């Protein structure tokens, strides 16, 4: 409704400002509480390892949410995201230490659509591996 970016000002290939987000164990606990997803693999190393994971992993939805901020910060209106989808390809492992994990996000205009909408194609990686595939947002621009 109130995107500050004008459809006529963007081209296919225009890059959005990249960003990196740090995730620590405390962020996973906070997200668990806020979202209601208390799956133990997101906070309990013993259980995570017992089911074959290297360590505690971030909620896929937390990664998805962090990555979306690149789009919403750019568009100016978080309500302008009309569609958003991702495939989770690798878990984001969050070790119990000071540095935690870092998710690096890139975004580029992939297509200009009808109705002054654009498709933003996103990439996200952590520890040198792609953690999302087919990450795309459709945004209603001004």
């Amino acid at each position, binding site marked *: 409704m109130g995107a500050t970016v004008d459809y006529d000002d963007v081209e296919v290939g225009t890059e959005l400002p990249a960003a990196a987000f740090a995730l620590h164990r405390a962020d996973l606990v906070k997200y668990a509480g806020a*979202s*209601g*997803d208390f799956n133990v*693999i997101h906070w309990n190393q013993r259980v995570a390892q017992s089911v074959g994971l290297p360590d505690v992993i971030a*909620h896929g939805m937390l990664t998805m949410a962090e990555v979306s901020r690149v789009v*919403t910060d750019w568009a100016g209106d978080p309500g302008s*995201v009309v569609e958003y989808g991702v495939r*989770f390809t690798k878990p984001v492992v969050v070790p119990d230490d000071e540095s935690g994990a870092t998710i690096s996000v890139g975004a580029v205009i992939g297509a200009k659509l009808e109705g002054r909408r654009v498709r933003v194609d996103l990439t996200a990686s952590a520890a040198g591996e792609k953690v999302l595939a087919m990450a795309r947002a459709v945004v209603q621009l001004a």
Partner: protein
Amino acid sequence: MALDQSYIGRSYPPSKPYEVGREKIREFADAIGDQHPAHRSTAAAQALGYDDVIAPPTFAIVVSARVGSQVVFDPELGLDYSRVVHGEQRFVHARPICAGDRLVGVLTVDNIRAAAGNDILSTRVEISTEAGEPVATAYSTLVARGPERQS
């Protein structure tokens, strides 16, 4: 241990309403590190043309996961949640979720399949207001990872 394929196509009755609170939106925005004022200030949201504070796009999972739990935690389906990781997620928004919304969700099991020893469950939750206004649809694919294969 394959999941019961007879669940495919099953739809559940509309969930009890979930009332979206301003503080819940703020808490969620804090948890994802999103500082946008439209998630915190009614005035800021109204300046963008909304009635009240709006939720971040992925907040719809708070509603859709509750609705989806009807099948995810159905003992007869037998999904082992500690082995579940998220495979895919997609949201289509008719409009942003807004504080004060009373949302109901209708859950449908779109697909169940087995691949590479994993069980894969795809669901759809159609979220609307109690009055029937469409708000969002959440498409989720969950993967229950099979036990490690013996070599």
